[in-house]
């Protein structure tokens, strides 16, 4: 057995052996279920019959089958999309706006304070998901700031921060540069889905030590107390990557990590607040510059959203199947105008599917590819759908 295999086996055995005591602890299942009952009383009933999870699985399976089956790009394939072919769709050009300057759905917001700035944008709201680039910059890189996200809310309700991925941290530190940038993608609470007006608020607090900063290096032995003492005597403010504000108590010879707001004990720091507000109208209909439709014997369709922004490519297709053709229509894959998957089908979208009964049983497919930017797209793109009978439907869009 190789050394690496031995190591892997040893670590797995360690987890198995040392944590096996947890298996014998009593379950908290009943308590947790009881707590859900309190939440139920305050929640509104859903407006639509949503089959998102099941439908999304079907879509993903379909995409998988298409990718694996090798049908894409084969010699016979172009026949299925030839104009006049029974599977072909009337290709109506729809303008895909880049940057969104032509419409009001894309918003940019910026706030600055002493040596720090926070900017969000351009933002897209497709009825369920908010997406935007978030950039924080410390222009005085020689003096790190400690950043803490205080609020991330929509219409006054806190949004799950899983989408923002902004850990409390020092900027810059050994691991972050003086500019921190991330693509934020957050799913709104269910009660807000398809709301016309969304007001997003982001509040970040920063703390800049008045003293010069010295970043302690952590080893497996912890921090070197001699270095720490010397640096404190020299007038430095000690920090450590990923561990918040450091505090050394010489009496106890112990290190403490300050995770939340600093207090006087931590030394003098200067506080700033950065607040961003994004007002988004939607759900997403403003992103399309023109509304166009597609029709054939199987369905009529139109794009609700078609936008390529800093935070990705967004396409939402509203499809009305005709008569008994609904079962033939499966999920979609992103292709060029000829139905060939972009980059061999490697792009993986976030996808949700819902049946909108209010819209005459329309099926709404929402896609977002976070890794795709304008430069990745050919002149024409399409959501394309392999039919169960082997045909292919394309819904081409012209990219400007």
């Amino acid at each position, binding site marked *: 057995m190789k050394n690496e295999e031995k190591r892997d086996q*040893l*670590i*797995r*055995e*360690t*987890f198995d*052996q*040392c*944590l*096996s*005591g*947890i*298996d*014998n*602890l009593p*379950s*908290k*299942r009943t*308590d*947790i*279920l009881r*707590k*859900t009952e309190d*939440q*139920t009383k305050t929640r509104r009933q*859903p407006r639509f019959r*949503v089959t*998102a*999870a099941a439908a*999304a*699985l079907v879509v*993903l399976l379909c995409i998988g089958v298409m990718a694996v089956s090798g049908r894409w790009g084969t010699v016979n394939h172009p026949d299925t999309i030839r104009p006049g072919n029974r599977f072909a769709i009337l290709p109506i050009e729809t303008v895909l706006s880049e940057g969104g300057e032509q419409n009001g759905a894309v918003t940019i917001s910026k706030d600055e304070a002493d040596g720090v700035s926070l900017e969000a944008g351009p933002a897209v709201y497709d009825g*369920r998901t908010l997406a935007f680039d978030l950039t924080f910059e410390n222009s005085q890189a020689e003096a790190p700031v400690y950043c*803490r996200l205080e609020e991330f809310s929509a219409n006054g309700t806190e949004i*799950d*921060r*899983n989408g923002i*991925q902004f*850990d*409390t941290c020092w900027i810059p530190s050994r691991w972050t540069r003086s500019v921190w940038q991330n693509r934020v993608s957050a*799913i709104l609470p*269910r009660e807000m889905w398809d709301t016309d007006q969304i007001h997003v608020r982001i509040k970040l607090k920063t703390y800049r030590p008045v003293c010069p900063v010295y970043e302690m290096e*952590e*080893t*497996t*032995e*912890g921090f070197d107390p001699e270095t720490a003492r010397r640096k404190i005597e020299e007038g430095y403010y000690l920090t450590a990557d*990923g*561990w*918040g504000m450091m505090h050394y108590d010489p009496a106890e010879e*112990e290190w*403490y*990590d*300050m*995770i*939340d707001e600093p207090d006087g004990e931590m030394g003098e720091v200067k506080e700033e607040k950065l607040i961003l507000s994004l007002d988004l109208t939607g759900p997403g209909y403003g992103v399309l510059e023109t509304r166009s439709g597609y029709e054939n014997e199987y369905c009529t369709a139109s794009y609700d959203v078609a936008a390529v922004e800093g935070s990705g490519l967004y396409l939402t297709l509203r499809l009305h199947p005709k008569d008994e053709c609904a079962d033939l229509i499966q999920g979609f894959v992103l292709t060029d105008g000829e139905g060939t998957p972009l980059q061999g089908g490697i792009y*993986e979208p*976030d*996808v*949700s599917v819902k049946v909108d009964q209010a819209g005459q049983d329309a099926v709404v497919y929402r896609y977002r590819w976070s890794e795709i930017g304008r430069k990745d797209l050919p002149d024409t793109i399409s959501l394309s759908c392999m039919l169960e009978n082997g045909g292919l439907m394309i819904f081409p869009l012209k990219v400007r």
Partner: protein
Amino acid sequence: MMDENRREQLNRIMLLYEKDMLKVCFVYLRDLSLAQDALQESFLKAYRCFDSYRGEASEKTWLTSIVINTCRDFCRSAWFRHRKKEISPDSLPISVPPPDEAHMDLMAAIMELPVKNREVILLKYQQGLNSREIAQLLHLSPMAVSKRLRQAYGQLKLSLEGEDAHEE
């Protein structure tokens, strides 16, 4: 999804993953009582978010992502966190049969890893995720995951060699 269905779903995922996820919380937070609180909070979040689970990741990966983020929130919400120099075997729930010394030493070393490296070790070996899944879950590149794993191996090696030298 109707509330009754959601509760059934919650009950099902708790039956499947409760103990597994408690282990994740425990290794992350290094405190059994805090871990149990974090686990409860995670399942309540999952209950509220069933509709937003869109099937891109496996159910277990989705739940692990919620658990990890909840543990991070727990770390943030504490006013002060005392840096423990070492994890005593007594702080682990009693295992039957008791682990041998070598495994206990390694467990203590894992628990003392910086959280960034500890979480990749935890996800790889305790949760059985591959680098791509870990990268997706932690919003990192696979290269960054490999780098953290390498750092963790180095730190574990140093830590265990240090102990051996001390015993000699």
